[in-house]
Each structure stands twice: as C-alpha cells, then as structure tokens.
C-alpha cells in the first residue's frame, strides 16, 4: 500500500511538490536559525569566558558584590599561594590571575608636556610567565595589527582604535594615571610596543594590555589580583561540572565570615548571564514552535486544497470499501513521507548554509560601533549533532498536524451521497 501511495505522491506534483517545498523551506530556516542561535550563544559564552568571566572566576566576596565597578581596593591578597592550591586541587582547569583597571593615558610631547590624554580600560595579564595561558586565550599574536608583543616589563599593548585617535606609533611612551589599591594616585610609564584589535567593539574602543606584575607594582597590589580565572583545558564550558566545582570550592569557606574570603562564581552566575542564556534557549524553543504552528497552518491549507482536489478520489475509495480510518491513516502516511523527505532536503540545505557561515561568518562590526557587549564582530553559526535532527520536529510534525486537521474531512463525508457526488 505504501508503494501505491508513493507512486501517487510522486506523480501528483500538487500533493507532493508544494508541500515538499514548503517543508524544505521551513526546515531549512529552522535548522539555520537554530545553528545561528547556537553560534550566537557559543560566541557569546566563548568571548565572555575568554575576556571577562573565565569558566569560573574567584574574587573576594566584597569584590564580587561590586565587580562591575572594578573595586581593586577589595582585591584578593595572597594570589600566589591560592594559585598553587588551585592547581593542586583542581588540575582539570587552567588558572590565571588578572587585574582589571581603568585610568587616563597621558601622551607626552617632545618636551614631556601632555600632548593628549584619553580614558582607558585595561587588563593586566600574566604575560611573561612561560606557562601562562593568556597568549592563547587572548590570541594576542592574531590580534596584533602593528608593532610587536611586549617582551619585558614596562611594555604594553594598546587598542589600535585608541592608538589612532591618540596619534600613537609603536615604540611611543605613555603614562598611565590611575589609583592604587589604597586609593592613592598611581602613575606608571609604559612603552607601547604594538597595537591590537580583537574584533570586539567593547574591548577595541579603549583597551590596554599590560603585564600583571607591572600593574601590581603600579597599583600597589603586591601578590594581589582582582580576579583569578579558571578555564577548562579544552576551553569548552560545562555548566554542570562548573557548578559542582564552584559549590565544592565555596563549601570550604562557608564558615569563614571574612568579606575578603574567596568566592568562586561560574560563568553563568556572573553578570546575569544565566538569565541571558535562558532567554536564548527559550527563544530557540519559541522559534521552533512558531515554525511548527506556521507550517502546520500552511500545510493544513495545502491539505484542505488537496482534499478538494482529491474529493472524487476519496469518494471512490470510500465507495470501494476502504475504511475511513484506513483512508485517514493513508493520508497521514503520505504527509509523513512528504514531511520526512522535505525535512531531509531542508536539513541538508540548512546545514549547508550553516556550515558555510560557521567557516566564514557574517561581519557585523558596522552595527557594533557603540556596543559594550563582549561579542565578536563576526557572527558565526554553530552546527551541533542536534542540528541534524531539529528540523524534523517542525518538518514532520507540521506536516502531520496539517494533514491530521484537514484529513478529518474524511470522517465528515457521507457515504449516502457518494453515488450522487461521483456522478458529478
């Protein structure tokens, strides 16, 4: 019987081609948008982890409470011993200390007078430790657009955009004016050895990258750091594991009432990321639901049109003694076949587009000029194993739903008037 139905589907284009194209298009969009949201989420998580939150981050409790204000006066003291302890107890993660700082960058003229000043938002990284992961986390070699990377203390990198604004060249000397951990004035001189561009507007607008020990000296933060970031060695964030890890770490300090006791937060727990990622997941679910409903309506209408066209055929089949249930089921099988084949084609197309954009991406830098989000300027899709299946939910589901509704007409058909109808 299925072979018989297939012949009809293949030969009658109006009951195969139109629904097939509708399903393919809908599934293609579903797969693409799913991969797009996936990519967005992955890009977002990855960028946030690398540049701001780590997969887990340790701060003092009071620093964590006001982390948005970069309160270096509340930084953790005793970083070296804590790092040693962390490396020993949690070897599955890479640990690295950072200090975020803000201040003014003063560029002197030939006689040492201020030529120009500009605000900067800097990050101090462990640059000269050969075991430091920061070079690969920040991908500094790729980000470098002019000059060279710092090789010794007193050297720093500056955002290419800021350098252009301040008319700087590699090798120029600058002065950082900021405040120490105790709130006094901090002044330190640096040689800008190179300019960097991360492709993240929020960082590129005014970033300065300096060595951790330089900034510790400049801000009087000996053996102190605002944040200690932990990364899984494969750089893939695993929320469940990270949550357990943080719980385990924090449990050790639960009886310590000191506001400077360390506190570990997972990526999701920082800056309302959990809500944002939850929204993203909700959005992708709603998206799939919308496609199911919209396609079901389209296919329902297609089914109604098909039923009108096939009115005679359905009548003959009923007259010949085909049971209404059997007829209804055969319509469902037809739509399941169309839905499956359409989903197959749509998934292939959706994956093709998604794979292309995973490799090449879409440049949205022009839209991000005033953004403060740590989001890369090239949006990429991300194909996962589920991307291969997600299209089948709306593809087959909507086809079946549409036919299930329109096919109910079979049950309303009166056999008593069949003879008259079939004479028409």
């Amino acid at each position: 019987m299925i072979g018989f139905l297939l012949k009809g589907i293949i030969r009658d284009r109006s009951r195969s081609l139109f629904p097939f194209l509708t399903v393919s298009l809908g599934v293609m969009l579903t797969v693409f948008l799913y991969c797009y949201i996936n990519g967005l989420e992955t890009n977002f998580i990855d960028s946030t982890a690398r540049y701001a939150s780590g997969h887990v981050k340790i701060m003092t409790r009071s620093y964590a409470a006001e982390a948005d204000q970069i309160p270096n006066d509340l930084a953790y003291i005793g970083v070296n011993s804590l790092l040693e302890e962390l490396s020993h107890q949690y070897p599955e993660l890479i640990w690295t200390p950072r200090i975020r700082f803000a201040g003014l960058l003063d560029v002197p003229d030939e006689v040492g007078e201020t030529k120009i000043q500009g605000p900067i938002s800097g990050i101090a990284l462990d640059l000269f430790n050969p075991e430091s992961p920061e070079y690969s986390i920040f991908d500094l070699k790729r980000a470098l657009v002019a000059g060279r990377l710092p090789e010794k203390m007193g050297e720093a990198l500056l955002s290419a955009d800021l350098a252009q604004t301040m008319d700087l060249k590699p090798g120029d000397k600058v002065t950082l004016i900021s405040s120490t951990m105790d709130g006094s004035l901090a002044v330190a001189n640096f040689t800008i050895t190179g300019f960097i561009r991360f492709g993240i507007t929020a960082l590129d607008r005014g970033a300065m990258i300096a060595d951790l020990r330089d900034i510790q000296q400049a801000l009087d933060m000996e053996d102190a750091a605002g944040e200690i970031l932990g990364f899984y060695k494969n750089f893939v964030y695993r929320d469940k594991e990270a949550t357990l890890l943080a719980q385990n770490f924090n449990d050790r300090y639960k009886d310590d009432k000191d506001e400077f006791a360390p506190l570990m937060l997972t990526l999701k727990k920082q800056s309302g990321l959990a809500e944002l990622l939850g929204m993203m997941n909700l959005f992708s679910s709603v998206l799939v639901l919308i496609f199911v409903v919209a396609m079901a309506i389209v296919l329902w209408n297609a089914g109604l049109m098909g039923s009108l066209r096939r009115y005679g055929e359905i009548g003959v089949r009923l007259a010949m003694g085909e049971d209404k249930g059997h007829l209804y089921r055969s319509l469902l099988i037809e739509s399941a076949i169309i839905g499956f084949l359409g989903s197959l084609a749509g998934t292939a197309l959706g994956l093709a587009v998604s794979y292309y954009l995973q490799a090449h991406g879409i440049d949205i830098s022009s839209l991000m000029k005033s953004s403060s989000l740590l989001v890369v300027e090239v949006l990429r899709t991300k194909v996962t194993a589920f991307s291969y299946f997600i299209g089948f939910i709306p593809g087959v589901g909507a086809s079946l739903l549409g036919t299930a509704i329109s096919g109910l007409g079979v049950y309303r058909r009166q056999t008593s008037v069949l003879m008259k109808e079939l004479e028409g």
Partner: protein
Amino acid sequence: MRKGEILIETKDLVKIYPMGRHELVALNRVNLIFRKGEFAGLVGPSGSGKTTLLNIIGSLDLPTSGSAVVMERRVEELSHKEAARLRNEHIGFIFQTFNLLPYYTAYENVEFPLLLLKVSASERRRRVMEALDWVRLADRASSRPAQLSGGECQRVAIARAIVKQPAIILADEPTANLDAENSHNILQIMAELNHELGTTFIFATHDEKVISYLKRKITLFDGRVVKDEIIS
C-alpha cells in the same frame, strides 16, 4: 455460492429524506429479491428511487424502515466499518463518470481494490491481468486514464469492479457518457462476465441500450416497484 441463491432481499424498504418541513419518500415499501447470476435493471424516471435503492443495497445508505439483507447481512444494522467491509469484499461499483484515479495507470487502478483486501503481489498480478483481459485492455495496462478513451476508461472501471470477484456489481448509469458503439461493447463485456462468472449485475438506468441487454427489468415510480418483469 450456487446459482439462484438469494444475495439480496429487501422487505418493506422505506427511505424518506427530510426536505425542510416536508418529507420526500424516495422508496416506499420496496420488496425485492435478487439471486446470484441476475442481470437486472432498475428503470424509471428521475426521482423514482433507482439510485437510492442502489445506495442501500451497496451499504452506502441506511433505510428509514424495513430491511435490506445483502450477502446475509442486514444493512441497517451494519456499522460504518462493517459496511465498508461488505462493500470491499462483495460489492463492485461502476459509475457513470468512471471515477478512475487519474495519477495511476489502468493496471494500478484495477489493482487498488486488491491492495485493500491485502492480496499477495503475485496473486494481484494474476488477477489484475485476468480482469484487464476480460475487458480487452491488457495491452493498455500501463496507460493512465488521460491516455484512454471514454469507452476504455469505463472498461478499466469494469475491470476494477470485477477484479476482486465480487458477488454483486452495482452500476449507476454506466453508459451515460458513452457513444452507442462503446455502450454496446461495455454491455457485451458485462453480459459475458455475468454469464461466465455468474456475477450479479444490478443497473440503475433509463438508457434503452442497457435495457435491451437486461434479463430482468424492475420499473420504479415514485419510490414504488410498479413492474418487475423477466425478459426472455
């Protein structure tokens, strides 16, 4: 089933259609018996009740009162599913407008009732080709309805009706859309099938060409049987 055995029996069969405030009596106390091998026709003007009687015999409709026993089953007591099974197993239909499935070949159209009966593939092939042989269309088995003439389409419809070897074939105005030559060809085939296979044919018609082939002519008027004659 032996020749002469009763296949259909109606007793005081009444069918009334409500028409707004009024009622239309389509069949009024019809008492008829049809035996195996009959070649009978229901004749009479439009509205005399011919199609209504075919509908009830074909288990497509229910009587308002009285009874219709078809193949030992009371039509008025059958569920939709049982009625469908009765049609599927024992009754073939031939319509005025052929009603072939347009996207299937002649072979596939004839094969369809056997698919419903879940007949094996090899048996289906044998029976379909035999049915197409009967209507002299074995060489057009792979043609679709659009490629066939009206007469050929009706012959395919006959093959579709006989392929499951039903006891009864109900034909509603089977020659209405055919020219004289095709009508005679069709009627000849049906007469042969009746003679060779013993299939009972019941026609609803006012076509004189059909009437000339009948062995029994039942005249209906205003829902009543006014004449029931055996034609020698």
